[in-house]
């Protein structure tokens, strides 16, 4: 018994000693330390059911909706994206790389036929979608969370299609800290922190906090016209999901935003180009398309002789081209594009733009992006069937998305040539069961109406369900000749209406 008590006392004393030693040795629990970067804010972009259909329609080969979750409401939010934003030095402009920005615009692949002139005075927020009612449905739903955790209402100004950056303005000026954004020099080997919001809790309430990944600058790519075009950053935890993070140096100064990821390395858009993108959109107070030529191609330096031969070049000329590679060879011309209108052909090699030499694909991208959409540029072209180089004047067009995808046109163009998309109306078919769930009958659900079309002017809205066109059920409407106007019988909020739209001439 005594022995047992002694053992217990010894054990107790040992435990106490261990506890005291442990408290002496253990350092203070250090919280995760980050350099202050108050210029990095959090953007919350919400999508309602209608926009989600729009996204699905454009992303997938989807024709109709067969079933919906019970209690689904078209106008309720179904998805929230949380991403980093960069507060610019005026204290109200925010720049962010929104992954679903395209859902706020017309369908991909639609060329801008005419470039609207910049307005004389800044437009009011609702003028992006000017008609009352529709603006509530279609206006981008954005919130900015400042560095102090406060939520701020923000309005979408526009997308800069050259960089893929969205420009926002917070409603209260100076609600975000006006930090100086300098054109900082970036050096290879320098450590940068990539800031972005991270999820803390998965259960509700969902909590987030600003986090940072560490990366190292691997390569700085100079721009052909001087300055930095991009720089590459490597890091152990980089993934596609990190695009949009804000890169900050050790001194807490912004150095760029991630705009791509290739081979485990992040491509960083430098501050100078971010500022230029913001300036472009703010001057216009609207989205700025990228200059569009309508071609695909490869730098000649990347091609082998047999690949050059396959594009119509004779052996000796192909060998000469491969021996002293320069320019970009065109491998595909989009039908109806500015390239086709300017008589550019597959196999042509563009050697110069406005007397600037093209060596790589990056050079071509750079110089093309320097031109304004709908402006004219002078190409110097080498052709398979001509010995001499030729000058060629090309009038560019504009494109809001970063690539072109013409599958939508084949999806929506019936054999006889009628297409609602040609009228600026994007739709998805509703099966009877789904239609009844949404409080309507089967038909075509309008998910987008181009704001510069007669359909928009006539009052057609996203969320309307088209039942008949010119008195015929919508799926059976296949006119042999284009009618002068379209009489749409629609259901809006369970009420039947007639909307007459003058047909757009092809």
């Amino acid at each position, binding site marked *: 018994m005594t022995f047992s008590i002694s053992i217990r006392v010894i054990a107790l004393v040992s435990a106490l000693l261990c506890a005291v030693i442990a408290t002496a040795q253990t350092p*203070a629990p250090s919280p995760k330390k980050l350099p202050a*970067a108050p210029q990095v804010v959090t953007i919350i972009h919400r999508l309602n059911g209608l926009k989600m259909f729009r996204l699905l329609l454009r992303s997938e080969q989807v024709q109709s909706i067969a079933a*919906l979750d019970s209690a689904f409401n078209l106008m309720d*939010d*179904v998805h929230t994206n949380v*991403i980093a934003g960069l507060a610019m030095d005026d204290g109200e402009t925010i720049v962010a790389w929104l992954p679903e920005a395209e859902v706020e615009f017309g369908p991909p692949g639609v060329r801008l036929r005419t470039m609207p002139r910049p307005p004389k005075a800044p437009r009011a927020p609702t003028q992006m979608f000017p008609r009352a009612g529709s603006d509530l449905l279609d206006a981008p739903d954005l919130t900015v969370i400042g560095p102090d955790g406060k939520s701020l209402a923000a309005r979408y100004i526009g997308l800069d299609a050259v960089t893929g950056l969205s420009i926002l303005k917070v409603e209260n000026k100076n609600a975000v*800290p006006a930090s100086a954004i300098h054109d900082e020099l970036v050096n290879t080997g320098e450590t940068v922190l990539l800031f972005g919001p991270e999820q803390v809790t998965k259960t509700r309430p*969902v909590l987030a906090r600003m986090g940072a990944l560490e990366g190292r600058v691997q390569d700085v790519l100079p721009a052909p016209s001087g300055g930095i075009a991009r720089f590459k950053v490597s890091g152990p935890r980089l993934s596609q999901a990190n695009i949009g993070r804000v890169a900050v140096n050790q001194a807490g100064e912004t150095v760029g935003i991630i705009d791509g990821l290739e081979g485990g390395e992040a491509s960083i858009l430098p501050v100078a180009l971010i500022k230029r993108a913001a300036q472009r959109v703010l001057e216009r107070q609207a989205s700025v398309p990228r200059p569009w030529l309508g071609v695909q191609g490869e730098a000649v330096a990347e091609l082998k002789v047999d690949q050059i031969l396959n594009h119509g070049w004779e052996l000796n000329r192909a060998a000469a081209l491969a021996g002293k590679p320069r320019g970009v060879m065109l491998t595909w011309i989009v039908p109806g594009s500015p390239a086709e209108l300017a008589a550019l052909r597959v196999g042509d090699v563009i050697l110069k733009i406005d007397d600037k030499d093209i060596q790589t694909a990056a050079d071509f991208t750079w110089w093309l992006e320097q031109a304004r959409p709908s402006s004219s540029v002078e190409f110097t072209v080498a052709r398979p069937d001509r010995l001499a180089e030729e000058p060629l004047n090309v009038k560019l067009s504009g494109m809001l998305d970063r690539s072109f995808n013409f599958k939508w046109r084949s999806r929506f163009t019936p054999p006889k040539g009628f297409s609602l998309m040609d009228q600026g109306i994007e739709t998805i078919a509703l099966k009877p069961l789904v239609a009844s769930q949404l409080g309507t009958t089967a038909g075509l659900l309008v998910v987008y109406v181009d704001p510069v079309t007669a359909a928009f002017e006539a009052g057609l809205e996203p969320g309307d369900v088209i039942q008949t066109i010119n008195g015929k059920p919508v799926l059976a409407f296949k006119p042999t000749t284009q009618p002068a106007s379209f009489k749409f019988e629609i259901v809006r909020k369970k009420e039947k209406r007639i909307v007459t739209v003058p047909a757009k001439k092809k």
Partner: protein
Amino acid sequence: MRKNNCELIRRELDELMLGEAHSSAATHHLRECASCREFHEQTTKLRHIVGSLGTVEAPADFDFRLRARLASQASSSVSSIYWPFARRGLALAAMVLLFATGAVVLRNILDKPASVNEVAQQPKVEQPPQKQVEELPVAKENGARTAVIANAGENDTQSIRKLSRPRPDYKKRSVAAMDFSSERANVIGEAGPVGVPAAFPIDASLQSFKVSLNDERGNEKTISVPTISFGSQRIVQGGNQFAPKRDW
């Protein structure tokens, strides 16, 4: 744009007694919202069905049988066998915890003068005397924490050092735990070289998006989209933002 009324209205309808009238807001909402109307009808129907059931009489020996079962479960419980040992263990653990806490508190108390000494032993930084005289009242006005080293030595103007910091210097403290309760939480916007990002709630979408779609070949597939996503990972595959950059 956000319509979270459905949830509120349904909660109200759930809490109503059978036959009790609902609010005018609920009436108005039910007039417009088909799904809530259906929910209300189903709930009411269910209550009527439950209400129409007769009273079920418990058997006479129900009380006795229940007590007997509880007693048999308690006697067979493993915990009851080990309870005396567990009680001693708990007492011992409480003692250890008490001593450990005491040790930490004691160490904290002993550590404070040590940190002051540590600061006092640091090499003196030469500062213009005029600047020091100007800084002291400012520190008082701001209410910033000011530590003045009294052991000045021969030249007071050189040995008096002021440490004006917005929060403790973590690197110089070797204590096991610090009390941050009197300080406000660090946020990323706070000035200073060290910042701890504060967590903030996200008002995520309440409605889930699960939909069956038919593709152009007549195949049906179901897509479920998460209610929240972080970063640039796209929620729907096949988008255009990551398309090859060889398109001009």
